[in-house]
């Protein structure tokens, strides 16, 4: 994960619930999470050799079929989409003025409210982080 946004981490800008997710800001913890994921993957992959699965489709029973499919399919889609973008991406005002992409959502339909840390101060004792 990108860790370039750590400059603004301060208690003020967090809600109590959000504080439980603070670990995403820490490069170490994220790395840990990735290791856990990798470990999980390894376990799942090994389980494939141990457990006999019931299968209908050809090759479905091949060990690691789903693992490989998942990895390759995802990569293919992401990379393919990247190539596709080179072909079809256009500036945002391409369809303007007949499409909503280039315009802002009208203010009257919104309720922009900045997060007010004061509220948190009041709630702080209850939430206990």
């Amino acid at each position, binding site marked *: *994960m*990108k860790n*370039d*946004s750590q400059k*603004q981490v301060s208690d003020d*800008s*967090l*809600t109590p*619930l*959000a504080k439980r*997710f603070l670990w995403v800001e820490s490069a170490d913890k994220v790395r840990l999470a*990735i290791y856990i*994921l*990798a470990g999980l*993957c390894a376990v*799942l992959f090994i389980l494939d050799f141990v*457990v*006999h*699965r*019931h299968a*209908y*489709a050809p090759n*479905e029973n091949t060990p690691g079929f*789903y*693992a490989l*499919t*998942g*990895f*390759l*399919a*995802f*990569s293919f*889609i*992401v990379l393919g*989409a*990247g190539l*596709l*973008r080179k072909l*079809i*991406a*256009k*500036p*945002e005002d*391409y*369809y303007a003025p*007949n*499409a909503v*992409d*280039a*315009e*802002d*959502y*009208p*203010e009257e*339909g*919104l*309720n*922009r409210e*900045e*997060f007010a840390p004061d509220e948190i101060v009041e709630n702080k004792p209850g939430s206990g982080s």
Partner: protein
Amino acid sequence: MLLSAPFLFLIASAVLAFIPQRLRAPLMLVTPVLALISIIGFGTGNHGVLNILNFELVLYRIDNLSFPFGVIFCIAAFLASLYAWHVRDLTQQVATLGYAGAALGGVFAGDLVTLFIWWEATAITSVFLIFARGTPAAMATGMRYLIIQVLSGVLLLAGLLMHFHDTGSIAFNHLGLQSTGTWLIFIAFGIKCAFPLMHNWLQDAYPAATVTGTVVLSAFTTKMAVYTLARGYAGTEMLVYIGAVMTLFPIFFAEIENDLRRVLAYSLNNQLGFMVVGVGIGTELALNGTVAHAFSHILYKSLLFMSVGAVLYRTGTSKASELGGLYRTMPITMVCCVIGAMAISAFPLFSGFISKSLILDAASKNSYYVVWFCLVVASAGVLSHSGIKIPFFTFFAHDSGKRPAEAPMHMRIAMIITAFLCVFIGVFPGFLYSILPHEVSYKPYTFSHVLTQMQLLCFALLAFVYLMKVGLHPHELRRVNIDSDWVYRKGIPSILPGVAASVIALNTRSREWALKRLERLGIQVARYASPTGPLADGWGVKAMVGAVVVLMFAILLFNLWPNA
């Protein structure tokens, strides 16, 4: 009949206009509840059978297939109404109830004529949810949407007339692709179901609707189309391949799309693909899968639209490139969004898992291996755009610096209820399975099933992590991506000025020429036909007798020649 679900909605939407502001939102909440009670109260069977001019109209047919759709539509209408509690715009409120009622009417229509009426009604009511945004671009988009939806209705009408001509029946049961009429009906359904190359209206319109309007839009039209396909074309093999294509191609578009609501629209298209495959296979298992998937899909797709809508409501944008790091101040929204993302990605214990696997199983059991593989790949793709992209780029990723407040209370409640339903269905699939059209003997939670799904998803996640690390994952850019709608939005319009100019020139020249000719002709005609002209002036004896003689000889010749 007035107590039937569609009419309850219509009556309520009419009543909305006449009651005070503060009573409107509660009424919108009560109506779906009453409608649900009405559906259960009427029970299965044909209600409201009218005989008009030898047509048997069945206004209200509740059976195993229409019942689950009716239930989920009511639930969706309830959740959307709750989510839209803050809306004070009467147009949107009336449109919401009217649209939900029309969609219910379509689902419960027992004949094609009734279906057609509701079919058009959904188009006309729903477009106001787009118009309500109030910008010129939304007006243009709404008009495009309306044109395509009405076109679908026209095709349906044409098809049903031809079908009636062929068979003498307007009953809406299994149709099959057997005649031009049924083909037309098929295409009409296909447009609303966003078949490939007929799908653009969906990605065009949904991001253009209001915050709450998109939530409403996402629930009804396409699922009504899925229902009609399941009713009329179950087991049509072509649908399997159409569905397979539908599951795959939107993924790529979703992956690079910047507007998150459009990402969700593409994702909706992809999910419809699963349902269409189920309809195409047409076995009991597959149809169960279709209905179950439609049911759970409405819930988690609503949830995702709600969370993105809440972000839009607070920040004014739903573009991935403008967002990021919102988990700090909108954690509840974030959690709900993640639940929705996991549901759509079909993690075990979430609703997507227990419904999608029915369709996948049906595909492999019926030896559609290629299609099955497409669906597996598409499942990985779902994770990429809906499962990861939506929550990750909205709530994590790089910090956009935006610190919006948490979504309003009613939105949070709506999202939490929806999220709860997503999990509840995932954990206790028996509830959903019990209302499916056919008996369900399927066990979703087998060890191998959970294992394979976890393998697929975890390794896909791994791929995501890997690609992010090496920087191959596409960045979010302020770009729009053209789709096949480019043809009618840009292609044809761009050549149009040239064509128009030449047409105009041709027209002017030919008109001048024609006018000159016409003028000359007019002068000639007037000369001959005016009271003193040769045609009009009373003919003299000479001319008259001459005509007689000529005609006489002509007739004599004509009569005698062949017999001479």
